[in-house]
Every structure is written in structure tokens, then in C-alpha cells.
């Protein structure tokens, strides 16, 4: 091969390729005719197209985690060392046992898959095994993808999709008009149709003109992305673009991402997405050697590859003739041009008649192969038949404008009866379709249209030199009433004309049903080449015009998109942003076992060598009961509320009395939703005359911030109050246990505040706020300090705690302690369905009302206690652990009466206890139930009791 500089392998054999060639071009160049086997019948398939519409030549490219299955050989550019494999074959591509399916095709017609669902389920279990093996595409790689993917935003005045002549003219005009321009092109070089045509624009060849246009756009500040496919068009003129920075299976540049997902927000979108050529429907139209005419031209002119030496061109339009000229110019023998029109009349046809055998009212009806490659074309010419020896059949059945993005944007389609094609109609967003995507076919007109679209209407002419002339608008081929053998419509899914007929006979009338019954239009190509022929056949059966037959939905993505492109950087175990505590390193130094809690990572416990997590947490909890423990509570939601109306705002948010709090005092409180159910709980503290601190749960922090913002800005914009979220600003350490007050006093030099009092102090040289509140049931304090100073506070507290026989404890110990004390937690006991009365807090609600949820909680359904799930305690009968989430039933298999919300080992005792939400729970005190988990096969007998297991009088934390 002249000019070859690259080597690649296909099914283990090494081949040479020239830079810029697609894998399909390189395989054709090396004489490889069979590239794949078809989905259902395992028929040998070659390359049919030259772009992303390729339905047949699907291969797996790359190795290990980089392997990309179902890659179109037409959409991967050869790089040194590319490894490609055929797929869905056994034992080999040349001899595939699965081809027996073709012989048994009468037994597996369209829809047979659905019929296997009938009958006993065990029969399907047998069928499934065979069906999955016999049909399919390439397997997904088992290894993790070693590469990274990127997300990037972009904004522009004008986004042009497609760098063909229309798109280039539009982008050039917009750039020169001073617009922010972005031009995206899925190919590796600009030019589109110009790459396959022998034309000159303004005195230079098409590809050169395209390259110059891109250079001018870039020089004018425009952004041009190649190998970038606009995959989706969303509301608000948002277009998603996936850019390949490395080819499938290719190792990207050092540390570079392999693909980038662009989220482009545009003032205006110009869709210059071109048109896709349609194949003809005839028997054996899928043999290797049968190709789309424009694709053949692209291989000849762009890639320097002549896909056959003896060619027949079959066309329904003038454009097909261009391929005959291209082949002849490249040295191939054009056996005949089969024109389905009875009397074509144009300059290009006249030129062709002087050079080739042009047969009118002629069309292919069948083919024969030698080996697996096309050898003979059987044509119907007028009323007779001719057999034409040929190894290449270039077919053109008309064109389908690519209107996918236009439709995704909400646009309508109009019907072009002459072209027998849908073209973009009314646009719903700031979008316009230009060029072949809008049904255009004349190059000079397309360039002028593109320029006008980009410039806002300013006209400009382009000097186009096309030796073959303009030609007449492309008409579509008629779908034959009958076909010999298998006439494929959807090549990827092996759907034939007779399959569509069968679906019709079996009662499938809607195009959506037809699609699902036959699998037409599914797969990686989504019917880009086949849908129009199928619609035409359906319309024939219905006796209506094609537009009346209906359309399926144009869903994004336009081309298959790697899932990694959607994920971007959000991969790995956590797959999201991680919120780190200010004291992360301090906890790490103590050997913390980490627990993801939403975005946060918090210490679960601090196990000693050889100690289990369970044992460690129980030890830590007992340490708190016996002496002293400290836990990082920096994740609590905290808000500073200040101003003359601070109390008024808090009384709207909180269902308890806040306004009467004295300075230096605090109160446990609860917040309701508008429907009267509990949203969150926390504490409110009056720090100064007009300044409060409100705390609420970690899990509900963002929700509470939103709630307070809504209250402040929507419900009470008249209040003179400032609400500042200080969750990030303030870190906090809770100190709990019988020794807590003494240790704190020793560090601050001042007496610790009484329960539910607060004070300011200096600890380790840091100004701190101390709140005396207990979650554990012991005398306890929350010590708040600015985040950047918290480490010093922690270090001082930890040193003193250890000296007092205490230490740090984690989330599990904190949970054990609060369960024993009967405290609820948001997300477990407060699950969005409980009222304050349900969880025993009804008595706290402010009788005068005026808070969010006051009206809601008076609704009969909530106010009536009977039948509601209420908070209760559970004591395990026996020594088993209590399974969280287990149903509470009177006996196994009975309707659940409630569920275990939290379980914990006794800290001040032995055995297991738990909290539960139980229907009419308080009336069931003393009742024995079964905690039953069918999924875990667990059954634990429990006794219902009061939810407070420890120090009911509160003597432990009061002074």
C-alpha cells in the first residue's frame, strides 16, 4: 500500500494503513471484504457506509479496560498499534457456526423472541440461554476503564453543528460578524461532503477551502472542535457534545482525558448535520460489496481506496452518477448504471451516457456471491432481467436529512414529497437547519444559505466550479412490493421487508409497535439508514402516505456514547464530592474507621488493634457512660440568626417557643413541614439580645438551609433579620460523660454552663462557644470554634480527656448512646411520615401556633392518634442481635405492624434494644412481637417498651 505508515491488527492479522484512514477504509484497502457477522442470522457483512450511520461493520477495538465493543469501523481512525476484533462470531469470522440461524430463519421470524415468553416460565429459562449466545453484539469489557473523562462548559452566540459546506460558511460568517462561535464536527477533518466531491470553491479545491475556512474561524476567535459529536439538544438551547480526544482503544496522551463532554449553552444553534443516503431494498442487499454510493465515493476520493474493480451503480437519483464518475476516474470498470427512473433527464445523466452503460427503469433485484463477496448483480431492466458480473454495487435510494437534533429540540418535521423525506419544519428553540439537513442539494445554494444563516441575513455568493453540474433534486427509490430472498431494511438488526409484512399481518399497526416487535431501528445506529424504507413499507401496508404512518422518537444520544463520558470525574467508590472534616487528620491519627455519611466522611469508631468495629463502638459508648468521651459534631447544621426580628423568624421555623428564651439559654426544638409532619429537630440558643444560634441535623442541613432561605425571603421578607449558614464556619466537638464538666472547667478556667445554658470562653487560646446540651444522656457540652482554629481546641480537649480516662468516640457509639436514651434521629425515626405526636414530642408544640406546619398538624389524619405509627422501644427477648429495618409482626407472614428503625447493644447493661415505629405503639407496651426480616432470614422475638431505656428522670445530665 503506497503511503502506508501505520500498522494495525484485525482478528490477529497485521495490516498496513495510511494516516487519516478509518478502520473501514484501511480494511477495504487491504482487501478485507467481510468485517462482521450480522446480529441474528450471522450473515457475513462488509462495510456499507462511510460515517456514523454504518449499520453492519461493527467491531471491538482496543484491549482490556480500553476495549470498546460495537464500534463502527467507519468511525474509528487508525492509529499505530490499533487492535480490532470481529464480534458475535464462533469459531471465526470466516466460518461462523451461528450462520445456521440463517437456514433456520423460518423458525425464528420477527417477534419470535416475544413468543418465547408464552408457556411455562421454565421454558423461557432454556430459550434465554440460547438466544443470548446466538444473538448479540460485542461483550462489554470486564476490566475497569483505565482512562479519565472530562466535563466542560462552553457558551457561545452561535453553535454550528457540522463542518460541511453549510456549517463552514455559517461559522465563517458568524465569526466575521463578531459573534462568539463554536463549530463542532464529528469527523477528524472538516469538509463533510466536500471531502468526497471533485469541486472547487472560490478557486480552491473543496478540502482545501474547508481547511482555510477553519483557520479563518479560529483566527477570528471561534472555537472549532473536531471528533466532536453533538449528541443531544436539550431545553434552553443546551447542546451536549462528546469530543473524542483519543480514538477508541487508544492510549490517550499522558494524564489527558480520553473523551470530553461539553455542555454548550448557545444563543443560536445552526444545524448543518447533512443527510444520510438510503440503501435500496432487494434480495441479498447485505452482501459484502454492496455499499452506499456516497460512501464508495468517499473511500475513492478521500481515502484513496477503490472498494471494487467491477462496479454497478444503482440509483434513484442524479447523485448516484457522481459515484460512477469517481470510480471510473479511479480506474474501476463501471459495468452499468441502473437508474430506477424511467426517463432521467439532466446534464450529469447525459455525461454518463457518453461514458457508461446507463440502464433506465432498472433496479437490482437480487445478488449472487462468490465465497462471501458479491459476484453478480441480477437486475430488472424494464420488463426483463440482466445478470451483471460485479464485485461492487454502489446504491443510492435517496437521502434522509439528519433532523435528530432539530427534533430533540422540539422542532416539527415537514414532508418533502419530491425527495420522499422528512425535512426540518418549525423550530421551537433558537435553531435553524441548513444545507443538506434542510433538504438542500445544490452546493452554491447551500454555501449561500449557510452564510446568510451565520451573518444574520447578509448575502454572499460563492464561486462554485462543479464539472458534473448541479443535478436534479434527489428522489427516493420506491420500496418494492415483493423481493427475492432476504431484502434487508434494518441491516443491524437483520430486519427484512418480509419481517415488516409479518408484523403487519400479526396486527402491529403503530410504528412504535412495529419497532419493538421487529427490533427495527434499535441498536447502535438507531435505524439511520433503514427507518425510512421501513416507514415506506408500513405506509404501503396501511395504504397511506409516509407522513401518516407516523414516526418514532428521536432520542439522544445521536450516536452511542460511552458511559464514562456521562460520569466524567464522578467515578470510584464514592463517585461524588467528598466533604472532609476540619479534624480529618486528627481522626486519622487516632486510627479512625471511616464511614461515608452523605458527602461527609466521619469516624465510625477508633478500633484498637484486633478489635472489631462492634466491640470498639461498645467500648467507646461505655467510656462515655463511665468517664468521658468526645466526638466530632462539626457536620451539624448551624445557622446564626440575628437582628431585631430574629426571634420572630425562629418562631416561624420552630414549633416550640423560642421568643421567651433568655440570653445564654437554649432549648431543644422541632421543625415541621407545611403538611404538619416533622422535618427536622435541633436546638436554639440565644447568644445575645438579637442573635441566636440554631442547630439541626447533619442529614437535613441542606434542606434546612433551603427552608430558612424560603422563610426569610419568601414568607417574611419584611423582617429585619439575617440568617447565615455557619455550618462550614463553625466546627464543634461534643464532650460527654460524668467527667465532662470538670475537664471543661479545667481547660477554660471557668465553671461549665448548666444544662441548656451557653457561654463563651477561651480554650487553648481560641474563643469558643460552649453549649450545654446532651444527646448521649450524660452531662455534655458542644464546644464550637471557627473551623480553622478547631484543631487546637480538639487537641486540648483530647489531651485532657485521655488524662481523665476518656477519649474519642465515633458515630456508632453515639448511636448506641442516643438509642438507649430514646432520642430520635432524622432519617431513621423521623422518616418524613411522622408527626411530633408520633415520636412523643407533641407536648412541646407551641399552643398559640404561628409556625410552619401548625395548620397541617391539626389535620384529622395526623391529629388522630389511633392507627398511627408511634415511637416505641424494643427489648430483645433472648441474646440475639436486633436487625435494623426488620418488620414487626405478631407472627411470621402476617401484615407488618411497624418496623425497627434503629438497633443497638445495651451500653448500660447487656443484650440488644431498639427503637421502632409501631402502629398504635404506645398501647402495645409489654406486647411480644417478632422482628422479622424475610430477606435476611432473621426472626428475633422482642417486647415493646418505653423508648427511654436509661435515666428517665434526666438526673445524669442535670446539675
Amino acid at each position, binding site marked *: 500500500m503506497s503511503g502506508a505508515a501505520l500498522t494495525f491488527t484485525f482478528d490477529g492479522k497485521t495490516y498496513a494503513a495510511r494516516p487519516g484512514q478509518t478502520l473501514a477504509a484501511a480494511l477495504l484497502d487491504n482487501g478485507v471484504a467481510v468485517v462482521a457477522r450480522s446480529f441474528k442470522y450471522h450473515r457475513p457483512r462488509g462495510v456499507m457506509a462511510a460515517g456514523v450511520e454504518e449499520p453492519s461493520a461493527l467491531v471491538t477495538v482496543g484491549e482490556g479496560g480500553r476495549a470498546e465493543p460495537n464500534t463502527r469501523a467507519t468511525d474509528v481512525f487508525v492509529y499505530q498499534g490499533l487492535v480490532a476484533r470481529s464480534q458475535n462470531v464462533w469459531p471465526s469470522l470466516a466460518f461462523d457456526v451461528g450462520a445456521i440461524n440463517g437456514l433456520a430463519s423460518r423458525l425464528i421470524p420477527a417477534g419470535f423472541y416475544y413468543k418465547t415468553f408464552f408457556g411455562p416460565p421454565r421454558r423461557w429459562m432454556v430459550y434465554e440461554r440460547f438466544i443470548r449466545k446466538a444473538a448479540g453484539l460485542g461483550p462489554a469489557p470486564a476490566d475497569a476503564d483505565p482512562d479519565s473523562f472530562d466535563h466542560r462548559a462552553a457558551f457561545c452566540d452561535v453553535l454550528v453543528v457540522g463542518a460541511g459546506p453549510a456549517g463552514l460558511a455559517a461559522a465563517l460568517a458568524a465569526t466575521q460578524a463578531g459573534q462568539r462561535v463554536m463549530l463542532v464536527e464529528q469527523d477528524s477533518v472538516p469538509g463533510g461532503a466536500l471531502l468526497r466531491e471533485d469541486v472547487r470553491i472560490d478557486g480552491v479545491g473543496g478540502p482545501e477551502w474547508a481547511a482555510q475556512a477553519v483557520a479563518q474561524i479560529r483566527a477570528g476567535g471561534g472555537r472549532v472542535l473536531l471528533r466532536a459529536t453533538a449528541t443531544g439538544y436539550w431545553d434552553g438551547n443546551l447542546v451536549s457534545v462528546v*469530543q473524542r480526544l483519543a480514538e477508541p482503544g487508544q492510549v490517550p496522551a499522558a494524564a*489527558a482525558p480520553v473523551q470530553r463532554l461539553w455542555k454548550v449553552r448557545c444563543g443560536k444553534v445552526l444545524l448543518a448535520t447533512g443527510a444520510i443516503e438510503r440503501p435500496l431494498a432487494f434480495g441479498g442487499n447485505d452482501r459484502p460489496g454492496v455499499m452506499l454510493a456516497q460512501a464508495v465515493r468517499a473511500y475513492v476520493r478521500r481515502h484513496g481506496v477503490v472498494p471494487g474493480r467491477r462496479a454497478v451503480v444503482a440509483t434513484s437519483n442524479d447523485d448516484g452518477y457522481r459515484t460512477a464518475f469517481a470510480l471510473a476516474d479511479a480506474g474501476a470498470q463501471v459495468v452499468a448504471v441502473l437508474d430506477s427512473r424511467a426517463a432521467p433527464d439532466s446534464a450529469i445523466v447525459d455525461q454518463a451516457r457518453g461514458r457508461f452503460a446507463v440502464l433506465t427503469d432498472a433496479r437490482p433485484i437480487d445478488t449472487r456471491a462468490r465465497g462471501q463477496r458479491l459476484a453478480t448483480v441480477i437486475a430488472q431492466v424494464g420488463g426483463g432481467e440482466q445478470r451483471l458480473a460485479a464485485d461492487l454495487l454502489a446504491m443510492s435510494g435517496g437521502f434522509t436529512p439528519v433532523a435528530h437534533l432539530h427534533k430533540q429540540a422540539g422542532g416539527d418535521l415537514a414532508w418533502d414529497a419530491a425527495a420522499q423525506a422528512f425535512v426540518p419544519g418549525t423550530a421551537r428553540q433558537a435553531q435553524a437547519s441548513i444545507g443538506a439537513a434542510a433538504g438542500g442539494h445544490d452546493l452554491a445554494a447551500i454555501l449561500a444559505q449557510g452564510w446568510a444563516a451565520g451573518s444574520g441575513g447578509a448575502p454572499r455568493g460563492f464561486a462554485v466550479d462543479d464539472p458534473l453540474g448541479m443535478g436534479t433534486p434527489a428522489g427516493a427509490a420506491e420500496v418494492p412490493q415483493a423481493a427475492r430472498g432476504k431484502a434487508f431494511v434494518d441491516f443491524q438488526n437483520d430486519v427484512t421487508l418480509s419481517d415488516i409484512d409479518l408484523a403487519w399481518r400479526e396486527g402491529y399497526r403503530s410504528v412504535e409497535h412495529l419497532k419493538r416487535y421487529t427490533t427495527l431501528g434499535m441498536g447502535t445506529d438507531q435505524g439511520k439508514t433503514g427507518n425510512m424504507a421501513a416507514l415506506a413499507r408500513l405506509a404501503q401496508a396501511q395504504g397511506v402516505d409516509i407522513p401518516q404512518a407516523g414516526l418514532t422518537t428521536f432520542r439522544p444520544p445521536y450516536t452511542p456514547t460511552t458511559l464514562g463520558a456521562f460520569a466524567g470525574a464522578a467515578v470510584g467508590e464514592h463517585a461524588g464530592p467528598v466533604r472532609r472534616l476540619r479534624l480529618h487528620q486528627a481522626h486519622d491519627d487516632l486510627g479512625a474507621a471511616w464511614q461515608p455519611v452523605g458527602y461527609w466522611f466521619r469516624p465510625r469508631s477508633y478500633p484498637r488493634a484486633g478489635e472489631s468495629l462492634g466491640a470498639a463502638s461498645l467500648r467507646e459508648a461505655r467510656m462515655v457512660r463511665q468517664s468521658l468521651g468526645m466526638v466530632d459534631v462539626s457536620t451539624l447544621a448551624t445557622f446564626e440568626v440575628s437582628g431585631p426580628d430574629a426571634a420572630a423568624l425562629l418562631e416561624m421555623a420552630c414549633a416550640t417557643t423560642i421568643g421567651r428564651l433568655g440570653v445564654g439559654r437554649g432549648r431543644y426544638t422541632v421543625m415541621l413541614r407545611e403538611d404538619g409532619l416533622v422535618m427536622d429537630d435541633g436546638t436554639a440558643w440565644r447568644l445575645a439580645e438579637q442573635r441566636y444560634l440554631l442547630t439541626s441535623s447533619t442529614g437535613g442541613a441542606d434542606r434546612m438551609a433551603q427552608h430558612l432561605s424560603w422563610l426569610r425571603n419568601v414568607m417574611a421578607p419584611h423582617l429585619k433579620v439575617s440568617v447565615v449558614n455557619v455550618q*462550614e464556619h463553625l466546627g464543634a466537638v461534643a464532650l460527654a460523660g460524668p467527667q465532662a464538666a470538670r475537664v471543661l472547667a479545667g481547660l477554660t478556667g471557668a465553671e461549665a454552663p448548666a444544662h441548656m445554658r451557653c457561654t463563651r470562653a477561651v480554650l487553648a487560646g481560641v474563643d469558643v462557644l460552649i453549649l450545654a446540651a446532651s444527646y448521649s444522656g450524660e452531662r455534655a457540652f458542644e464546644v464550637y470554634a471557627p473551623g480553622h482554629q478547631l484543631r487546637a481546641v480538639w487537641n486540648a480537649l483530647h489531651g485532657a480527656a485521655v488524662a481523665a480516662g476518656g477519649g474519642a468516640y465515633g458515630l456508632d457509639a453515639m448511636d448506641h448512646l442516643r438509642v438507649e436514651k430514646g432520642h430520635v434521629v432524622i432519617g431513621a425515626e423521623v422518616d418524613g411520615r411522622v408527626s411530633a405526636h408520633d415520636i412523643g414530642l407533641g407536648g412541646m408544640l407551641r399552643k398559640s401556633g404561628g409556625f410552619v406546619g401548625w395548620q397541617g398538624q391539626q389535620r384529622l389524619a395526623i391529629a388522630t392518634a389511633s392507627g398511627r405509627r408511634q415511637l416505641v422501644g424494643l427489648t430483645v427477648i433472648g441474646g440475639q442481635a436486633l436487625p435494623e429495618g426488620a418488620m414487626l409482626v405478631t407472627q411470621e407472614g402476617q401484615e407488618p405492624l411497624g418496623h425497627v428503625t434503629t438497633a443497638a447493644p445495651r451500653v448500660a447493661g447487656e443484650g440488644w434494644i431498639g427503637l421502632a415505629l409501631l402502629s398504635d405503639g404506645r398501647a402495645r407496651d409489654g406486647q411480644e412481637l417478632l422482628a422479622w426480616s424475610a430477606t435476611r432470614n432473621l426472626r428475633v422475638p422482642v417486647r415493646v417498651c418505653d423508648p427511654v431505656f436509661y435515666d428517665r428522670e434526666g438526673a445524669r445530665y442535670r446539675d
Partner: protein
Amino acid sequence: MTVKGRVIVIELSVHDAADVLALELWDTAGAPAVAQALGFALPPAGRSAGDDQRRAMRFEPTVWLVEGAAIDRAALDAAVADHGAVTPIGGGLVRVRLVGAAWRGLLMHDGVFDAENPAFAPGCTAATVIAHVAVRLNVVAPDRCDALVPASLADGLIARWREVAARVDTPA
């Protein structure tokens, strides 16, 4: 960090932001006194005023972030009086200074804000989300943008920025 010879050339440094205060005014009557205390008028929405020693940035309708070693907190409190409130928030923030012509391109990664818009010039501010993190941006100079980042999320975002900044990027 500086990555030379590549598309993205940027220096990224991390600084303390402990001095940041949230200043909320619920009526405009306090604005003149606050301006006197600061030494400059409070900026309109989406703008900043002042310099590295004393700066005010407006991201919300009624809230300014005030920062700088030269801020006299007592004078500010007195100026605000009953017209608003001042609340320290800097303990929860990290200031990331992005220096280099490519800071705009860096901020486009994982983001939704048009940092490449030339109108987003020195003196402009914006609150946006980058890589799921709420970030406040202040364009200090043509080749410098400061970002205030929540402390808990700063490690991840800064690591991501370093990763993006270090990459061999494709020419746009």
C-alpha cells in the same frame, strides 16, 4: 502550580480566608455609614470594590462578603447598627488564588458558569457551582481570579483543579 508549554498555564495557591465576614443590610439607610467605614461604596450585585487590604463583594441581593486585614470590625459593626448584621464566616472558607491567563479555561471544567465571557472582567463576582461545589468567584485582575471555596469540599476541588491544570489539553 505552573504548567508551561501546554494550553493551560496557571498558578494555583491556597490561602486562609478566616477574615471573611457576611454583611447583610435589610435597609439601604445603613449603606452610607458602611461606605464610610470601608472607605468605598458598597458594590452593586455581581461586582466587587476595594483591594486586597479591604474588599467587599456582592453575590446576593442583600448580602456582601467583606474581607481584608484592614477591615475595622468594630467600626463596621457600628456603621451597620440596626440596619443589618455582620457575621463571621471565614472559618469555613478557603481562598484559592488562580493566577495566569488560563484561569478562565480552568473554571469551565465541571462548571456551568461562563467564565470565558470577556464581560466577566476585573471587578466582577459570581457565585456558581463547580464540580458540585458552591464557589464564589472574584476577578481581581485580568490574569487573576480568587475563589472562595467551602473548607470541607476544598481538598477535593483543589485536587481536581490541579489535575485539570496539569493536563495536556487539546487546543480549542
